[in-house]
């Protein structure tokens, strides 16, 4: 059904971005810029919730209409060549509805937080223009009604991520990180582009060429014209046979090839092995950016895409197995690295990579709704943790090294309390949001039938859960408990993140850290520093910005002598409180029957179920027919609600299993939950007892240096390509061989023409003149001929 309000969800942030870019840059009023930015997201949020939850035009809410029907808005046909057509049109079905709701809501909170966090920044307008642009792209990604429009958003969020990571334009490490992020994502995009083509040609071979997610019939565009019909590509794929489970299927050019190519894109965007290296570096951006883009929304795009294309993936078991293995491996690898980081944002970054690994694992074992559930709860608690860390960094005057924190709970009670809930949520303590989603993933992994090594994957997931509890406890202990190290740390040297990093990497003394910053220092006179320090003491917040010259406005230096950390203002703590509430209770939306003692029967899962695919091989003989019923929004339309209800009660198939609640399953689920609760408690206990005593304990070097992955990539890929291109291709082949031949021919010709040399003066300009003369003669001849 058509509802063009949908397009306003996407358009509002774009309008906000344009206003801020054109008007905000001149107005230079933080209130104006902040208002425009937040209001535009606010509009999106309100419309998103209205469309998702209320019965519009009598057609039912996007999330609850029975049968599941998307709200659609077709704008114009983007490109049409031959039988290929891609539209600019948006659609909100149950999956994108859930996504849009939490993206806009969390986005709104982060925007509000950022108005406080970025206060005093020199290019405030630029930050919010980028942030709004990001929301535009993210909503395009989620609401786009076909693969290519999704790809627009996909690349677009990558661009905004690039712009925002590199927001502090004169910092080299920010520029490097931004470039790295964009290029790593581009490597993934290579796969996505090819995957999209694959999907198109697969459907074209089946006689229904399409890259659309939805069937488009009876739609009208903005001016009321009928939109040409379009078939649903994934409904076409849903009629196809399952690819065999072999390695060869990867290159056979069938569904598995398409699936794995798209997954390559997901490894880029969702920071999986082997492309995860960009995400930790991306923390060079401002903290609200890390919360919004690099934790809550953009990085989960890979998961969204896989779930969106679930019809494809359930028919590509090889790809599913690879996704599961890569997801589990990434979860474990990143968690172990997170154990040894000292920068508070780096810990959270690796934690994000690790949690994304969980989501991928869920996708890989066919637990798509669990993956999306974890995406949502993760958005709540990880945004909370990032914003909390932002609040800490803000209160510490942009100190990010946890070794120079400690004892902050006294100074920042609200931040402490809210981060506490985030900590318990991510560690998997019951009632808190993270427990439900993580536990559902682990249970689904344990009981999966899509591969035979579910038990191993489950074990890996469990280990990761323990490590997660440990490193998060370490983070909390180092930050909020223990001795107040910021005072003594300051004596050693002024740290911003660059310095802190140098400190962490080299284990240098404070003196070395200082030498590393000599370049920065040249722009300060010692007097300025004193000035800055005193002003820190007198002004409670941010006077620091005004004291430095433009170039260094954002290079902060931790706390000055005698200065105390301070709690953040209300605009920053309020989003924290709301997110904390969500982190506590948000998970109940997806509490399963078994663990809630029958009180709640996983409403989240049941909402999503009609729009995601089920593994056809579980349904047996009638696989395709029965599968279609759940397969896609388009085909579900043909079934009435009672039919699907009957199927829920009927034969358990794949994900539908929880609906049946056999006693054995309930027992298994409860036992597994018990195990993970115990292990989470064990992890927290271990972390608490160890790091409480030794908060500065030296962690293994291998972990601290991130398994040297960056160094390995540099040495084996990047440097050889650079050197090979410079020396091999350019100097030897291009200049040496090809030009050598050309110039050689020239020389031979010149030698041969030695005899004729006397005729010519040797000035190139006279050659040119001769050439011109010749040309004129020819032209003159023809002109004369014409005249005749």
């Amino acid at each position, binding site marked *: 059904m058509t509802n063009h309000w949908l397009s306003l969800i996407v358009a509002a942030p774009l309008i906000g971005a344009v206003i801020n870019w054109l008007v905000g840059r001149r107005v230079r009023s933080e209130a104006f810029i902040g208002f425009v930015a937040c209001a535009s997201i606010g509009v999106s949020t309100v419309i998103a919730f209205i469309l998702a939850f209320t019965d519009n035009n009598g057609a039912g809410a996007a999330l609850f209409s029975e049968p599941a029907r998307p709200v659609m808005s077709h704008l114009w046909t983007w490109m049409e060549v*031959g039988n290929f057509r891609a539209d600019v049109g948006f659609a909100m079905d149950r999956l994108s509805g859930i996504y849009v709701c939490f993206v806009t809501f969390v986005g709104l909170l982060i925007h509000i937080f950022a108005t406080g966090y970025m206060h005093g920044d020199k290019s405030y307008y630029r930050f919010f223009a980028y942030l709004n642009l990001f929301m535009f792209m993210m909503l395009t990604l989620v609401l786009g009604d076909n693969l290519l429009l999704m790809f627009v958003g996909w690349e677009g969020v990558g661009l905004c991520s690039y712009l925002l990571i590199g927001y502090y*334009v004169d910092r080299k490490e920010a520029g490097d990180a931004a470039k790295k992020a964009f290029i790593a994502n*581009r490597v993934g995009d290579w796969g996505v582009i090819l995957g999209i083509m694959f999907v198109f040609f697969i459907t074209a071979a089946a006689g229904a060429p399409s890259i659309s997610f939805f069937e488009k019939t009876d739609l009208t565009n903005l001016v009321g014209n009928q939109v040409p019909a379009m078939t649903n590509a994934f409904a076409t794929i849903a009629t196809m046979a399952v690819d065999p489970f072999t390695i060869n299927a990867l290159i056979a050019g069938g569904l598995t090839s398409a699936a794995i190519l798209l997954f390559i894109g997901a490894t880029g965007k969702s920071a999986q092995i082997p492309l995860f290296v960009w995400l930790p570096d991306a923390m060079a951006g401002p903290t609200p950016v890390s919360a919004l883009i690099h934790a809550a929304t953009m990085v989960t795009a890979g998961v969204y895409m896989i779930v969106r294309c679930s019809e494809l993936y359930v028919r590509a078991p090889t790809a599913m197995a690879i996704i599961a293995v890569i997801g589990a491996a990434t979860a474990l690898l990143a968690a172990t690295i997170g154990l040894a980081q000292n920068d508070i944002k780096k810990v959270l970054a690796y934690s994000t990579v690790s949690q994304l690994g969980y989501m991928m694992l869920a996708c890989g074992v066919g637990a798509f709704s669990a993956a999306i559930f974890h995406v949502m709860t993760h958005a709540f608690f990880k945004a909370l943790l990032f914003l909390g860390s932002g609040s800490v960094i803000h209160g510490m005057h942009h100190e990010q090294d946890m070794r120079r924190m400690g004892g902050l709970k006294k100074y920042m009670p609200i931040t402490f309390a809210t981060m506490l809930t985030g900590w318990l949520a991510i560690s998997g303590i019951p009632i808190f949001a993270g427990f439900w989603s993580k536990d559902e993933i682990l249970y689904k992994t344990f009981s999966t039938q899509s591969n035979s090594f579910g038990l191993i994957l489950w074990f890996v997931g469990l280990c990761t859960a323990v490590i997660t509890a440990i490193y998060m406890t370490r983070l909390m202990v180092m930050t909020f408990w223990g001795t107040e190290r910021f005072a003594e740390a300051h004596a050693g040297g002024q740290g911003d993140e660059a310095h802190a990093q140098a400190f962490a990497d080299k284990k240098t003394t404070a003196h070395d850290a200082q030498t590393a910053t000599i370049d920065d220092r040249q722009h300060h006179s010692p007097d300025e520093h004193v000035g800055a320090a005193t002003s820190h003491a007198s002004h409670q917040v941010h006077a620091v910005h005004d004291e430095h010259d433009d170039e260094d406005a954002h290079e902060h230096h931790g706390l000055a002598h005698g200065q105390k950390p301070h709690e953040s203002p209300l605009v920053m703590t309020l989003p924290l409180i709301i997110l904390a509430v969500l982190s506590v209770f948000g998970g109940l939306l997806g509490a399963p029957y078994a663990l809630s003692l029958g009180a709640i029967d996983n409403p989240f899962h049941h909402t999503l179920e009609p729009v995601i695919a089920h593994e056809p091989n579980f349904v047996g003989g009638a696989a395709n027919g029965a599968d279609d019923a759940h397969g896609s929004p388009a085909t579900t339309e043909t079934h009435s609600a009672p039919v699907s209800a009957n199927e829920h009660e009927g034969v358990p198939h794949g994900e539908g299993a929880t609906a049946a609640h056999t006693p054995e399953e309930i027992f298994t689920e409860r036992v597994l939950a018990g195990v993970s609760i115990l292990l989470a408690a064990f992890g927290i206990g271990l972390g608490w007892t160890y790091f409480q005593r030794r908060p500065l304990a030296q962690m293994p070097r291998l972990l601290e240096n991130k398994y040297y992955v960056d160094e390995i990539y540099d040495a084996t890929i990047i440097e050889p390509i650079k050197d090979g291109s410079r020396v091999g291709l350019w100097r030897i082949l291009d200049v040496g061989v090809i030009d050598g031949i050309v110039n050689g021919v020239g020389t031979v010709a010149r030698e041969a023409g030695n005899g004729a040399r006397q005729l010519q003066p040797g000035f190139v300009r006279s050659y040119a003149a001769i050439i011109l003369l010749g040309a004129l003669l020819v032209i003159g001849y023809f002109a004369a001929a014409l005249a005749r």
Partner: protein
Amino acid sequence: MKIVVVALATVEPDQFFQSSLMRRRCDIDDFRALKRTAKFTSSLRDDLCATFNYMQFLESNLLTILILLPVIGGIGIGLHSVFAPYRDEKQYKWIALAVTVVTFAVSLILLSGADNSELSTFRFEQNVPWINALDTRYHIGIDGISLWLVLLTTLIMPIAVLSSWTAIEERQPSYYIFILLLEAAMIGVFVALDLLVFYLFFEASLVPMFFLIGIWGGKKRIYAAVKFFIYTAIGSLLMLAGIIALYYSFGTFDYPTILRAMNDGSVVLSVATERLIFGAFALAFLIKVPLFPFHTWLPDAHTEAPTAGSVILAAILLKLGTYGLMRFNFPLFPAASRYFAPLIITLAIIGIIYGALVAMVQPDVKRLVAYSSVSHMGFVVLGLFSFTDYGMQGALYQMLNHGVSTGALFLLVGMIYERRHTREISEYGGLVKPMPLFSTLFVFASLSSVGLPFLNGFVGEFLIMMGMWNSTYQYAWVATMFAATGVIWAAVYMLWMLQRVLFGRITNEANRRLPDLNFREIGLLAPLLILMVVMGVYPNAFLVRTRDSIEQVRVRVASPQGGGTLRYAENVTGSPQTRIEQRP
């Protein structure tokens, strides 16, 4: 702008003022004033029409007018500078600007009524005997393939003139004469339908460019100019031989006549002959493109040329090659095109990756953009030789995209060159502080070149890759996968360059006080930047007009029997001679 509006209003006053669009755009006073003016001009028009139907005249001679306008402008500047020179030769650029702008405005008439169906045959055709001894005819016309290229040419030229505004200080009259002659020659190439006429324009475009590089170029300009000239002259001499060979087979230089003879089967080229002549034509065009390994003239020519020269070279002259392939090689030699396609596709893919890798390590900004052209034009050739509708439409679209994006990049590079007189990347850094607007636009143009969706580059690249994937070659998908790595490399070299030029700390004190862009510079970039968005968001407006013409070429070249027909070869009633005789 006003001139255009008045012109439009004059041509069709009733329809124009009834259009609600116009009403909405003008406020009421403007509207009245405009209406008065239009009334006057249209009454003038009526008076004129009483004696002389100028609309018909315009329509039947439009292409000739387009070619002649710059020539007349050039001659005008020449005569003026000889007989009544301004004391200050800086005045001549105004004439050049006026002429190019008027040419652009007139060229917009090409779009009138140019809906899809009318572009399946040649429009604005003119066909008169020229040299009877050689049976050469002055035969010109446009279809969907040449339409946008002509418009691209007329759009780029005023921009090129504006970009020379302060950069060119010496010998301004001759500079602008060359620019205008170049424009005439390039328009001529795109509209010529007689092989000899085509050849003359093709060669004629070479000479002004040679002088632009050789006189107003950088330090190594002589070497670059001679290299450029010799490279391309060798190619075009081969083409001349090919043309003459065709003449001896068909007895005419007229392109549609030759096609008709091929369709009839009245003249059949032997396989060997077809391949030989194909080779002669293809070499000329592939050097112009340039395809790896014929590309080494390009970095030198681009780097040494003045900004306007680089812009014209990248935006238009390179397209002469790909246009020639599509216009002449495919329809004239379909079997040979298919025979050589695997080789050329291989070279194109090598070119895509090679160009990008070499671009990555260039220490010179202009050279970097030049090598990126090698990579991008590799995409175009790839799309052409895929012989699929996606690929060929994508290729034509990518020609326009490359013109717009790379043109803008050269303009931007020219702007910092004018300020610092160096092209070394290492000399820059941190430009975003003194020149924020420049940096924004530079990033924007780079992203378009990188192929970000919703900007122009993506549409072309995507369609080309789809076309390659869908082609009938063995291992087409492997080829596509390699070609697609081009999108990664593009990001690598562009972003790395951006980072070193724009971001980071200012390391060179000379950069600290650079002035940001002025109004002229913003104005000359604006049309290109707007086009980047429009072409990226609504490509259908462009694709729809190229569809039919390209489809005919595709059907002809892709069908295995070498069959397939071109409608413009069939539809013509009677021989050219009889048609001409009917004219007064």
